[in-house]
């Protein structure tokens, strides 16, 4: 049984022009000890999905449909009080590196220990401090930083603190939302290596969100590519490296230059994402797809399972479709 099973998740926002589903029927599962990536461009719904799972949605966002099963328990059915027992102890989060991702007026040690105090009743101050010191060691930070305030640490150090914090209660799932995006590449590599090492030690699963596809391929075992609120493709790392299935994923992979391969002209994906308040009929990627067929404009693409992933594209629904695309010479 998977650690996390998301089925047909729908999350609705309200906007000036009416409500829309930022996440519109997303399905995927996450195994124990796996690093699963959610990729896609801005606004595709990857962060919303993650926050929806962690019950951290802000503003007008609401889960309006679908199921989220964690360790075979339906999370959407839990009350706030019940869900609070899952918070941090079983599901924790690492946010993007930012000036204010840590509370500016609290010392590092207090931010490490307050989760411990909240969930482990009766733990002594001394014990909690000891645990905090251990956490700092896990992320290779000197213990004297415990007495410091967040603004006294560099961006990389702060992220390490955030990661240490996320491990405080040894959760089973850590959601990481763009954890290295605002850092320089050297620091980034250090953090990524540390995450992989910690995962090996403690065996937690990671839901890793980023728009940086090459980074994702470095760290993730499997990747789910989202587009316009829906899951376009889920594939293993090997599948991705061998050449993805969905035209959108292929376009994404082409947008990132390779350091070692031959020089190619960078191709972006022309056009822009569809309006989610009034999404188009059929496939949402149709207008930007180099292989669009006539059926793409009228019918939503079915989800097809393969050995190493799933893909939601008409090209893979029927043999004839692939012939049609090839014949069109595109």
């Amino acid at each position: 049984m998977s650690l996390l099973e998301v089925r047909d998740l729908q999350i609705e926002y309200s906007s000036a022009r009416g409500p829309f589903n930022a996440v519109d029927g997303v399905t995927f599962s996450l195994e124990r000890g796996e690093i699963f990536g959610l990729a896609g461009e801005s606004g595709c719904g990857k962060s919303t999905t993650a926050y929806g799972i962690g019950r951290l949605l802000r503003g007008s966002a609401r889960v309006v449909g679908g199921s989220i099963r964690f360790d075979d328990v339906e999370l959407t059915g839990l009350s706030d009080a019940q869900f609070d027992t899952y918070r941090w102890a079983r599901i924790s989060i690492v946010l993007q590196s930012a000036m204010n991702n840590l509370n500016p007026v609290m010392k590092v040690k207090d931010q490490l220990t307050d989760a411990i105090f909240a969930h482990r009743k009766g733990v002594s101050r001394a014990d909690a401090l000891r645990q905090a010191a251990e956490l700092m060691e896990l992320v290779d930070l000197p213990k004297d930083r415990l007495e410091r305030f967040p603004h006294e640490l560099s961006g990389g150090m702060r992220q390490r603190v955030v990661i240490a914090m996320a491990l405080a209660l040894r959760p089973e799932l850590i959601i990481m939302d763009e954890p290295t995006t605002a850092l320089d590449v050297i620091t980034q590599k250090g953090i990524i290596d540390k995450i992989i090492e910690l995962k090996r030690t403690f065996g937690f699963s990671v839901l890793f969100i980023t728009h940086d596809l090459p980074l994702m391929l470095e760290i993730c075992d499997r990747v789910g590519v989202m587009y316009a609120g829906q899951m376009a493709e889920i594939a293993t790392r090997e599948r991705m490296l061998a050449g993805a299935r969905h035209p959108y994923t292929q376009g994404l992979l082409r947008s990132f230059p390779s350091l070692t391969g031959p020089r190619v002209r960078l191709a972006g994906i022309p056009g822009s994402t569809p309006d989610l308040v009034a999404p188009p009929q059929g496939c949402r990627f149709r207008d930007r797809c180099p292989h669009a067929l006539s059926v793409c404009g009228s019918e939503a693409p079915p989800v097809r399972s393969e050995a190493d992933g799933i893909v939601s594209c008409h090209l893979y629904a029927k043999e004839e479709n692939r012939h049609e695309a090839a014949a069109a010479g595109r």
Partner: protein
Amino acid sequence: MRIEPAYAVRRVAFAAATLLAAIIMNFLLPRLIAGNPAEMIASQTALGSAEVADAIKKQFGLENDSLLYQFKQYIVQLAHGNLGISYFNYPTPVAGVLLHALPWTLGIVLVSTLVSYAAGWLVGIRGALKPGTWFDNVALAVSFFINSVPYFWIGILLILLFGYKLDWFPMGQAFAVDYDTLSAAGKLRSIAYHAILPTVSLAIASLASHILVLRNNLSRALTEDYMVLARAKGLSARRRTYQYGVRNAFLPAFTGFMLSLGHVVGGAITMEIVFSYPGIGMLTYNAILNHDYPLIQGAFLMIAASIISVNLLADLIYPFIDPRVNLS
């Protein structure tokens, strides 16, 4: 948490420089306006006595034409606590007059400031936590209304309602007419009784901005990333609200609070007039009308010194509540 010495030194230096500038300004004021400082500070006609006038002239070096000498004398006298003699309150020296009025001002202005801030902050916090509720909307509407009317109008209205119509409170003065005949307890009661309406008026009049500031600050703080983190940790609502939210929202409000405290000594001119309350505000106002220059100068200097020292205190306290400030 310790203060960086460089920061402390800079703040103290700034306070000293400002105080010096205030003293110089105060020194120059009568000379700039009327041209004849002797007339302003030691007027024989106003004081009604040639000997006293001459004594003062000597004290403040007014016979000597040198501005520098006069300034030196001014500082010397200042160090001795001699601010001259008030014309209108002759023979009471200025310092005496000020000290006499000070307790009344501290009584109503200080108390109302503290009450106003405390109440305003609590309302503002509640409004930010539950925006759009009837509590929040009513609080906002009332705040905007209060901010749109003159202070003294609120005072007058309260007197009309509670003093005249309902006869619950006296309509002015600091104590009853038969004060001198009362026992010690009776005196205290009389003072307290007379202080209620002015204090309440002042508190209400300034309530609005405190509500608004904290409400806005907290609303903004609640959108920060660390609030998401706090929620993700499953921390109690109370801890999230106060340790993470209010603790951060409070910071900008603190400087405003200290600034208000500094201004307390200046009294509340219009309110004191409305209530015929013998505070520093009323004193300064009458001094200006009576051309009582020594008193004007003295009051100004006292107010300036109070503001500067409270501001310095605020600057020195601030690093303890906002750890980020130390390093600037």
